[in-house]
């Protein structure tokens, strides 16, 4: 058994599970608070910052439940996608020096305080678990990459194939609805972008 600075060696598996329970509630509280902040912000960019924190805390909950792979996916797909959205917003509105000024106004240092505090709480909770490695002691059933992969491509093979078709439908729809075209009503009339 590894020694750890935060949880002493003498603790029984039950005690460790109790500690994890406490960490779980702390993380859940962070998730709830950050999600409330998301829906009460007036500014979309500020809401996005809290949304990233919300996703991180959910990833951490997955990690505590013994699913490190899903936790990683949560961070990569959701939190990552939010960052991409962020960049899109900035890109699309980047129209000149005036908007640059405006954008700078969105991200004043004060805005970062709330998300930073919440993230710091998450970091502490994460480090606590990471340094103790409780899975070995408590017999928590870990679901790793291999297990996920095996169940996806044997038990749920059909579901994976169907998800592919689902994505195909979504892409065709995005292509049909999203494509723009120039429409010329008459050659003597003004050309209009439709």
């Amino acid at each position: 058994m590894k020694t750890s600075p935060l949880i002493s060696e003498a603790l029984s598996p039950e005690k460790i599970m109790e500690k994890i329970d406490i960490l779980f509630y702390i993380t859940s509280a962070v998730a709830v608070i950050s999600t409330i902040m998301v829906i009460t912000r007036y500014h979309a960019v500020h809401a996005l910052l809290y949304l990233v924190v919300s996703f991180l805390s959910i990833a951490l909950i997955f990690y505590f439940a013994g699913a490190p792979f899903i936790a990683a996916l949560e961070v990569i797909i959701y939190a990552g996608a939010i960052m991409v959205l962020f960049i899109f917003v900035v890109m699309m509105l980047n129209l000149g020096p005036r908007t640059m000024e405006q954008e700078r106004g969105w991200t004043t240092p004060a805005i970062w305080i709330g998300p930073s505090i919440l993230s710091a709480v998450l970091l502490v909770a994460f480090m606590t678990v990471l340094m103790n490695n409780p899975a070995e002691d408590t017999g928590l059933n870990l679901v790793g990459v291999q297990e996920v992969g095996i169940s996806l491509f044997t038990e749920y093979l059909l579901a994976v194939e169907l998800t592919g078709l689902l994505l195909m439908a979504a892409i065709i729809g995005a292509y049909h609805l999203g494509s723009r075209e120039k429409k010329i009503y008459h050659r003597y009339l003004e050309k209009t972008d439709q």
Partner: protein
Amino acid sequence: MRKPESVLKFRRVNDLLSIAPVLILAGFSILVLLVIAFYRNFILSTILAATAFILATISILFTGKPPALVNHILIADRFGMFFILLILLSGLVITILSHSYLRGLEKRKEEYHVILILGSLGGTILALSNHFISFFIGLELLSISIYILISYTRDRQDSIEAAIKYLLLAGVTSAILLMGMALIYAATGEMGFSGIAGYVSEAENLSILFSAGFGLIITGVGFKMALVPFHLWTPDVYEGAPAPTTAFIATISKASVVVIFVRLYLAVNGAEQEVIVYILSGIAFLSMMAGNLLALLQTDLKRLLAYSSIAHLGYILVAVIAGKDSGAEAVTFYLVAYVLTILGAFGIVSVVSDHDREFSAIEDYQSLFWKDPLLATALSVILLSLAGIPLTVGFIGKYYLLFTGIENDLWFLVITLVISSVIGLFYYVRVIAKMFDPVSTDRITPFRKIPVGGGIALFVITALIILYGTYPAWLADFIQTMIFSGF
């Protein structure tokens, strides 16, 4: 660690053969897409889509008779196959209808058929699904296809508005449905319906967690079936969507969700659970009354049919609540009657309309008897069947429902069914009376010429409504021998 081989479920070719219709639809969706990539032709894509539906229908003959568990998330039994047959034939009719409707669209009209095939595929998955995973993926495949089909005529503002409404509400209800599945999984530790059935039969009474989960699932399913507290999207979406899409939502989407709900209800033995019966009875009562009362106020045929569909799904719920085999049989018969009739109703709206002008106001059908007697006769037969007048299939369906309700002592619901049907009769007959109005030449735009394919489809549908209304034994025997001999 388990060995990969031990969980591989596709060991027999028979497994693949038993879900042949699903595979054919999936294959054709890609084939049509590839053909579009090389050669865009609307007639070709229509023919290919129709071929997909016909081939898939034929392939039902080759699926095995005993129920086969495929990849443990689908169950290929006769009950599911019967509904797949219904879905595929509806898909075929909608393909034919969509051809004349979208012909005038300037660009990219071929993809409609790809999405139509994919949506029907979602429906077939729902009809066969035996597991929460396939339930959810089938439902999402259906929903995503419906978003696109609604907004396909994207130049029309109505379409986009309807699509956004449907998108937001369907998204929220999907989340609610998932929460329900999670709660049931937390209570039982099972995601397959057979596993859940095992848990329910062992448990003395259901835990709060399980009941709450089932309640949330009712919410998700009730949204798709447009039952009353969850019906608010229905009239706007029915009105805004292109007419073939409305036909798709009213038939394939609703029928497949009813099937999965019947499966789940039988699995949890819902008829024995008091809480579930009370909740569903309340929903059925509200749907029947509200649907029929609100339909009285409508001046638009599509909105009127939307409210009438709310009431009809309420009727179906009466038989669902009864549970057992007799309930499932009545549901099957009524769904066939309903799908046939509503397909005809929206078929008429779509053969007279096209992508930028829809004739859906009841005013548009004024004095139709003097202008186009055949079309008016077809619409009258369809409306009478919806109202449940004898000699139409709607009457036999309602008879089945009442019979099942009385057999299971659901007196309150049976009385509601009768009273609300009488209210319903009024607005159906009002439309027919409108068609008999003498000709007034002002402000009536003539309909365009009815396309051949749509005309044949409507003729067949009308003939079947009368045929099954006069000789219901053919359909009833078919349902009994096909499905319920080994259910």
